[in-house]
């Protein structure tokens, strides 16, 4: 089990690195899909099959399709690759890497400290997820659905044809 986790985790990290460093937008998005699938596998290994399935259905399967759709529509040529190359100059890496190293140090400290996360996994059944979603987290669910509904109505309003209505 442990070795599977490390493989999936390293795939996720490598794929995410490629997402940032790749100059071609669609290729970067394809790497992001791989990263999402790897994190879904990690969810599964950590005992959350429901979260793993939703990660693939919602993120890898739906949201990333929309991302790719939009990037495909923009149809960026070699010019944008050049632009990306100019943007990704070594200088800009200094700030983010410093901040990331601070986080890495913190993570090491937490793991080395006495309250290291325990390894005994709890297998979460889909039913338990549902019960806690519609029990203690009811208000959060309602708020999220209201937000989504507002977004949907807004999108419909913006997409509406003015003037001659055509079916």
């Amino acid at each position, binding site marked *: 089990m442990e070795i599977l986790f490390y493989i999936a985790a390293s795939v996720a990290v490598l794929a995410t690195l490629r997402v940032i460093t790749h100059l071609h937008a*669609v*290729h970067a998005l*394809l790497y992001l*899909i791989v990263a999402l*699938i790897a994190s*879904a596998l990690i969810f599964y290994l950590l005992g959350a*099959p*429901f979260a*793993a*399935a*939703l990660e*693939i*259905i919602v993120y*890898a*399967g*739906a949201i990333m*399709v*929309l991302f*790719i*759709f939009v990037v*495909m*529509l923009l149809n960026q040529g070699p010019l944008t690759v050049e632009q990306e190359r100019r943007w990704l100059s070594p200088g800009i890496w200094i700030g983010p890497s410093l901040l990331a190293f601070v986080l890495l140090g913190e993570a090491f400290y937490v793991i080395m400290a006495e309250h290291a996360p325990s390894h005994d996994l709890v297998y979460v*059944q*889909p039913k338990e997820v549902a019960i806690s979603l519609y029990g203690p987290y009811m208000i959060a669910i309602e708020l999220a659905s209201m937000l989504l509904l507002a977004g949907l109505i807004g999108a419909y309003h913006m997409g509406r044809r003015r003037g001659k209505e055509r*079916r």
Partner: protein
Amino acid sequence: MIDWGRTCLITVTMLGGLLTLASLLIWVERRLLGIWQERCGPNRVGPGGILQPLADMIKMFTKEDWIPPFADKVVFVLTPAIVVVTTLMTFAVVPIAPGFIVADVNVGILFFLAMSSLAAYSVIVGGWASNSKFAFLGSLRATAQLISYEVFMGLSLMGTVALAGSFSLTDIVEAQRGLWFIVPQFLGFIIFFIAGLAETHRAPFDVPEAEAELVAGYHAEYSGMKFGMFFVGEYLSITLLSAMIVILFFGGWHGPVLPPVLWFLLKTSVFIALIILIRGTWPRLRFDQFLSFSWKVLIPLALINLVVTGGIVLARNG
């Protein structure tokens, strides 16, 4: 612990059976379409033309495997595999008979939905990587279609899940011991069937490859066995759709007298034939019509189905 020998045996049987079936379906489809359209169909190669897939395969392999110089090479080569791999992966959670299943995961339906949403990438990215206008138009259509129909494909199944009380496909089949879910979930069945047809982008939902207007749509630039892979993927998806319909709504392996495996195969072949019949008899739908049909008719219906089923389940359990 996992019984490796048994799992390997089941996996090999499933893989062999499925790939044989996929190639056999090429002949079955053309022959059935021929009969329904009052002509013969392929009947020259072997008895009744049954060796036609073999001849097709030899043709495919010996054809020039052409990668257009303007295509995105790596992505272009990889995409035909996506649909085949994801569909074969899904068969891992399909219970053929009691105990005859590769991986009895407790989120079987979600796994099926996840894999079918990943399969969409082969169409979408394949059309993009070809870097030609017709293929690109095909993949744009495919994106809109697959996103629209994916939404309520999941919703239409939730009624079944509520009745069975589990995401596991084995549990769902077991829950249909007394009454097949086609009776209480008739609406869900209709919606799932339509959504499934749209997900496999078969006629009448084959606008991504509409040969009358887009040459061959998303696979216009593909040739040789890469083109063949798209077809194997399509036949595997048809088989998967039929198998899922049988499991979710027609009692899976349950049936009198005959052994369970035979019942499952029999029911599945009926649905495969039905899908082929639909292709032979229905005209292709207009793109904007069936997109608005999905958002304005099928999604509300799926939601109503879910609410009513949920209410009934709640009332019955007290």
